[in-house]
């Protein structure tokens, strides 16, 4: 039987909005849809969530992945340090977003700035306004980034949870496969197979965030019309974290005069919306999948970088406050054609567009005017791959990718609070920039010793019209030594492209970030090794180390009153990550992980500020511990089994950001904290015969921790408040 490459998936279509892709790939002899596992599902349509308890460890650990080498393979074989969050995990732990799932993954640390979560990986964070841009986030292999900032939206606005089959998470560089921004890791969301999708799956949740009402809805429907499959999904959230205090550690928050002395936030509302549409046409000769996504976010900006606690009523009686409101649309087309028994041709394309929505406004602490941001982007990302599988031991992919991004540059417009009109001279500048990146890559896998030793490698060359050439590579050996032992030894390099925002930003207020058109890519090289052991069907463990060298790290450095990003810094260090899983059939499932990150850095600067911050790593915790357990409980009602699940994260101390250290005049450290979630849910409740209905009561931040995470603009971010909500889900 010839092993087939799993095409990198994606599709798109769309005309107004929507949709996603899928995976196909049941037939082992036929190429699967992009970025999706090609193995035959181990359980049929009737056995997905309903049989959650039967998912033993062996199956979970042998889940097929396709992100590591664009080839369908088991996690053990995949040439990357990879974790998978399955559909069942999302249900069990009650994740409400991809961001929440990542919080519980080894190596990741998310700072929730109450607008767009900021992800760090293995001791490295992106800093101010990074918006999780240090990782590449994809849905079915297609980037979802908001191009102007290269940010990734990881909340409800990313994708309806009901359409997720699994989330494949790579820690480590992957530019050799995915180009720019696959810098510290890759998150690839694989959408559900047409054959496994429910006709309708609806999930609603409602409760309270602190004392504020909240609600979420997530509905996905699908149908098969002969060779055509259609999936439609929508998800929305309304939440409100208002009431959070300004952390006492904050050295210099900028609070408008009209709210002087205020100690708590008044507007941290969160509205998110995503619509998804996917239509696939699949035959033995290949497939054509069209998909589209339309996403929007709106956030109350009481912890925005420009001014804090800006919401309220100013002295003139005007309702004021920062609101961040952004939108984006992506249309994808993914085609795969089996040219011969050994050669497949894949062509994928994405049209993307995004910008600022009309509700967006930024308070800059002036009583006379506020600022409307004005920037936008649109472009295409086209990818072509030839996949060659001459025999079951070898495969290779030759690909080329072109990304064209037309950016309408940031242009703040001051709006009079008295008249609501743009102030004299302020108008759209009309300035634009065209950014073009062309890349080509070669990737190959070879079974040196069948079933025991596999070699994998690849190289990619990118040329960008602004910052020139980048060459990245990867290589590794994955081994299965028998007895449940496996090892991986890997090397990879990657680059993080300068974002249009960092290149061309203009200050919204005195002291704000200003662009640096000379900014160059940041680069990283990583050597990593992992040892894993599956003792039996109940217990497994893995431990690994990774050493990172990060060069040309962009840091915000003073340029007069302002801050500008410059490639001045370097960082290197070691991460040690260990995780163990223990499962007893359907009754008990648990995991625990621990990680240590020991990094040092060279700020690349001299003088007072460099001396003050020293060489110790900051922002990212030196250690993090995680644990989770779910256990079946006796029924309170006849024939309604219950399940209790809890997860905890213990985050070690974090040194404050450089900016905040400067403001304080000394290094300070934020206290460790414990984040605890718990839920009580039903299992196997069939109110309608054959269709499971599911109820749960969930609590996030159960102990109500009020510690802070590092901020970057003179204040720190309070942790998200406690959430208590009731969730109901029904699939038909």
């Amino acid at each position, binding site marked *: 039987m010839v092993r087939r490459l799993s095409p990198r998936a994606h599709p798109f279509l769309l005309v107004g909005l929507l949709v996603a892709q899928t995976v196909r790939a049941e037939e082992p002899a036929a190429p699967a849809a992009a970025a999706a596992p090609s193995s035959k599902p181990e359980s049929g349509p009737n056995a997905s969530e309903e049989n959650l308890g039967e998912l033993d460890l062996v199956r979970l650990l042998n889940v097929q992945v396709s992100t590591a080498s664009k080839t369908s393979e088991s996690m053990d074989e995949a040439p990357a340090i990879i974790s998978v969050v399955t559909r069942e995990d999302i249900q069990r732990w009650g994740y409400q977003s991809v961001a929440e799932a990542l919080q519980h993954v080894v190596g990741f640390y998310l700072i929730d700035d109450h607008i767009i979560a900021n992800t760090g990986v293995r001791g490295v964070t992106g800093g101010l306004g990074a918006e999780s841009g240090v990782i590449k986030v994809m849905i079915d292999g297609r980037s979802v980034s908001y191009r102007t900032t290269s940010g990734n939206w990881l909340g409800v606005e990313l994708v309806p949870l009901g359409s997720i089959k699994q989330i494949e998470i790579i820690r480590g560089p992957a530019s050799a496969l995915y180009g720019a921004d696959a810098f510290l890791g890759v998150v690839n969301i694989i959408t559900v197979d047409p054959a496994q999708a429910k006709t309708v799956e609806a999930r609603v949740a409602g409760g309270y965030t602190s004392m504020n009402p909240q609600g979420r809805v997530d509905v996905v429907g699908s149908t098969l019309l002969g060779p055509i499959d259609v999936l439609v999904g929508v998800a929305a959230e309304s939440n409100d974290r208002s009431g959070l205090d300004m952390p006492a550690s904050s050295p*210099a928050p*900028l*609070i*408008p*005069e009209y709210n002087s002395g205020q100690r708590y936030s008044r507007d941290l509302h969160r509205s998110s919306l995503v619509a998804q549409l996917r239509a696939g046409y699949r035959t033995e000769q290949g497939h054509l999948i069209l998909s589209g996504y339309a996403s929007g976010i709106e956030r109350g900006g009481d912890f925005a970088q420009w*001014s804090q606690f800006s919401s309220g009523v100013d*002295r003139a009686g005007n309702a004021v406050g920062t609101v961040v409101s952004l939108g984006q649309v992506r249309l994808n087309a993914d085609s795969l054609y089996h040219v011969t028994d050994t050669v497949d041709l894949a062509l994928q394309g994405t049209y993307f567009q995004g910008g600022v929505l009309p509700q967006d406004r930024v308070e*800059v*602490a*002036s*009583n*006379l*005017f506020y600022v409307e941001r004005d920037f936008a982007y649109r472009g295409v990302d086209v990818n072509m791959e030839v996949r060659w599988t001459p025999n079951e031991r070898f495969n290779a992919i030759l690909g080329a990718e072109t990304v064209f991004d037309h950016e309408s540059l940031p242009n703040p417009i*001051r709006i*009079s609070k008295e008249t609501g009109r743009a*102030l*004299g*001279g*302020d108008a759209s500048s009309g300035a634009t920039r065209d950014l073009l990146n062309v890349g080509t890559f070669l990737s190959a896998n070879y079974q040196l010793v069948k079933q025991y030793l596999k070699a994998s490698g690849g190289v990619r060359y990118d040329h960008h019209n602004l910052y020139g050439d980048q060459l990245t590579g990867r290589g590794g050996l994955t081994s299965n*030594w*028998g*007895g449940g*032992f496996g*090892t991986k030894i890997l090397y990879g390099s990657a680059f993080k492209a300068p974002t249009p925002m960092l290149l061309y930003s203009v*200050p919204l*207020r*005195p*002291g*704000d970030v*200003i662009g640096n058109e*000379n900014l160059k890519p940041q680069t990283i090289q990583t050597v990593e090794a992992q*040892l894993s052991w599956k003792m039996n069907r109940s217990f497994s463990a893995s*431990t690994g*180390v990774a050493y990172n060298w990060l060069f040309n790290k962009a840091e915000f*450095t*003073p*340029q*007069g*009153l*302002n801050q500008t990003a*410059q490639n*001045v810094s370097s960082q*290197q*260090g*070691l991460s*040690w990550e260990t995780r163990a899983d223990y499962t007893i059939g359907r009754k008990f499932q648990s995991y625990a992980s621990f990680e*240590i990150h*020991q*990094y*040092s850095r060279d700020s690349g600067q*001299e*003088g*007072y*500020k460099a*001396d003050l911050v020293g*060489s*110790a790593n900051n922002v990212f915790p030196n250690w993090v511990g995680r644990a989770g357990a779910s256990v079946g409980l006796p029924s309170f009602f006849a024939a309604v089994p219950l399940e209790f699940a809890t997860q905890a994260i213990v985050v070690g101390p974090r040194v404050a950001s450089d900016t905040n250290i*400067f*403001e304080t*005049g000394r290094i300070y450290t934020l206290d460790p904290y414990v984040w605890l979630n718990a839920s009580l849910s039903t299992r196997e409740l069939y109110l309608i015969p054959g269709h499971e209905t599911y109820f749960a009561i969930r609590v996030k931040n159960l102990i109500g921790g009020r510690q802070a995470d590092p901020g970057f603009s003179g204040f720190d971010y309070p942790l998200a408040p406690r959430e208590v909500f009731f969730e109901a889900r029904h699939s038909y």
Partner: protein
Amino acid sequence: MTERNDPKSRPHAQRAHFRLRPWRTALALGSLFAATSCTEAVKPNDDDIVIGLLLPFTGSTAGNGANFERAVLLAADRINAAGGVLGRSIRVVAADSHSDVERSRSSVETLIDAGAVAILGPESPDIALTLIEAMNAADVAFISPLVGAGSETELDCTHPWFRMAPSAQDLGAALAKEIFADGARQIAIIAADTDYDRAFGSAVASRFKRLGGEVLSEIELATRKGTYDAEVREAALLSPDAFVLAASPRIGATVANEIDAELDQTAQWYLSPLLKTEIFLENVAPRALEGAVGVAPRIFERGDSFPSAFRERWLGDEPLEGAYFYYDAMGLLAIALESTGFEGGGNPNFADFRQALFNAAAPPGEAVRWFELDLGLERLRKGDDIYYSGLTGPLLFESCGSRRLGVTERFTVKSGDFVSSGR
């Protein structure tokens, strides 16, 4: 060994080979982490001559500090490359004033404890005046490169406070003459509530009235506000011929933006010397400052050689106006220290050093320019008579420490840039 050679036992051998040995693993990881966490610390040399630097790296007037520090470090590099002074290296130790009196006092104590022979800074005379006593008590020379005194008459001249910029009174009077000469007859003065800005505003008002003009209002700005809408509305209602603005760049930018928002037309601005900085322009709406006029201490070396050296040293960063003065301060210090001829450890005799500062920029002798510090130091060591002639012109001090012959120049904002007219 026997097991390893027995094919039947190979699987077991493999397992044994990969069996975790916790203590060894821990030892290896511990070593790795220890190696990673060891960073090379730069140990200060006790023999270094320490120059203290007090600048606003943070706080309400932050913005210029890092740029000025870079000018000092650039000079220190050149001095150390030329063998240092008195056979010892110069070491610059910086501290943050935070534009706050208490924080500045604490920072000065830190610098004195570090053994500073002289302290350069701070950004405003208001803060400087509160520090003089501590510096005198510690026999530390005090040089303020960029500010003059708010009020010269209140100074104790037994301990000179070296100021390289003309006084606020001189600059304010010079600006008033420019305003009147330009034809404005009614002005509104908007000044921050610092001593320097107050003194500057008062000097403008006083001279402008004497010239026959009318000052419609003198509006004071509190330094720690994010908006000045009330002050701006008050000023705008007066409809003066021109606005005079004396504030830090941050406050100045806020006010300029808000005046621009309040008026239907571009205001005619007259600016204090502290606003002659690109960072002020970069933070004000385009065209809002077009045609603005100001006066500032004159910089004599206007060529590209200094900016070029600065850019090369600091990743393309451009020197601000004040950076020229800070460079000169460091150059002057080096010449003065070397000329004391002090030998041995510790700092030179304070009285000798103070006198050397007066002499370092005073003829006779051969002038040493900013890029000739190495040559100047070498000649001093040979016993030649030289003096430092800096980027900002002759550095001659009155007995009280104020700069003699402080020359001003007029500047104008044209197409978003400062243009010096030399008038």
